[in-house]
């Protein structure tokens, strides 16, 4: 619950909603997330917090804003009623480019980063904002899990780098920063954007290390969102290979390793992550530890 101090000070916060692949997203799914987002904004506004700015950060052109607004209004008309909706475009921008670009368009002292393909649970926004009452806290990290409704999505939920929705406390306590469910002090994130990198999900790890290197802590809270499960064998194949390449990129970035070390690092049990997370995860992922690929 947001405190009286935050209300008295009329703390201003902004949200950045990343919309990387507006061409291929499922608008029915997005609508569910945006409606939930509007509900969360209403919940904290009712407590006295200022009306926020919601930045939709997309990879299309500036001229796409009208079409996006039309679709968002059709799917979640409440969102425009409870917030100031703005659009920022970064043509061809990748995931972290859109995060960084969206942050620049915010005006609140606290910035919440989320994605268009996640759905917040009730109490999510309040849980993310509350720790910022402590002026020392720079980063508040939520709890993201994969939804599942069939064999394939259940398997993904078991092997993925997100903790499972329930019964996964040990893994969840060690979770890394979720770029789709995290809050920052604006001052910090503006001066520390996600680093540019060729990798797919490497920048988040680099930013997390930067945060820790400066002596800050990531404050984990139970601000829960579910992420729609990835679908399809083509995605499965592509994502697995990228996961491997990113693992090497992270090893290089964090250890400045030579090629021999890199090859040696990739050795060992290729299925270590799956074995630990799969076998031990069923049914409750007891005794698991972070697999070597488990960095978002």
């Amino acid at each position, binding site marked *: 619950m947001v405190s009286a101090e935050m209300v008295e000070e009329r703390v201003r916060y902004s949200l950045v909603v990343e919309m990387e692949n507006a061409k291929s997203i499922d608008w029915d799914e997005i609508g569910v997330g945006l409606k939930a987002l509007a509900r969360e904004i209403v919940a904290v506004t009712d407590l006295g917090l200022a009306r926020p700015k919601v930045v939709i950060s997309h990879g299309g052109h500036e001229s796409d804003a009208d079409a996006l607004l039309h679709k968002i209004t059709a799917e979640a008309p409440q969102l425009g009623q409870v917030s100031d909706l703005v659009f920022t475009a970064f043509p061809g921008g990748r995931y972290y480019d859109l995060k960084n670009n969206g942050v620049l368009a915010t005006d609140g002292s606290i910035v919440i980063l989320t994605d268009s393909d996640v759905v917040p649970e009730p109490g999510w926004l309040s849980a993310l904002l509350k720790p910022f009452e402590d002026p020392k806290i720079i980063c508040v990290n939520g709890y993201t899990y994969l939804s599942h409704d069939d064999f394939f999505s259940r398997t993904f939920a078991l*092997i993925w780098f997100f903790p499972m929705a329930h019964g996964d406390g040990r893994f969840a306590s060690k979770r890394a920063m979720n770029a789709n469910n995290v809050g920052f002090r604006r001052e910090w994130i503006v001066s520390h954007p996600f680093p540019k990198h060729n990798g797919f999900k490497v920048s988040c790890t680099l930013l997390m290390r930067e945060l820790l290197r400066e002596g800050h802590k990531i404050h984990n809270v139970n601000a829960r969102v579910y992420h729609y499960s990835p679908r399809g064998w083509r995605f499965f194949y592509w994502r697995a290979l990228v996961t491997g390449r990113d693992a090497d990129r992270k090893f290089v970035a964090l250890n400045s390793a030579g090629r021999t070390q890199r090859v040696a*690092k990739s050795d060992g049990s290729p299925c270590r992550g799956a074995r630990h997370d799969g076998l031990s995860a069923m049914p409750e992922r007891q005794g698991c530890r972070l697999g070597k690929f488990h960095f978002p």
Partner: protein
Amino acid sequence: MPPWQIPFSLIVGQAFYALAFWGQFSFAAGIVRDEIEIVPDYVGHS
């Protein structure tokens, strides 16, 4: 997860990490070049 699905799930999970291993090894060994990772159009959410 129904018990009968567990073996199949393990196979799929191991296939994922086997591919990930290949991705990491081939990249580390220089078989695959370092290029900017672009999300394919068929990926709705990743």
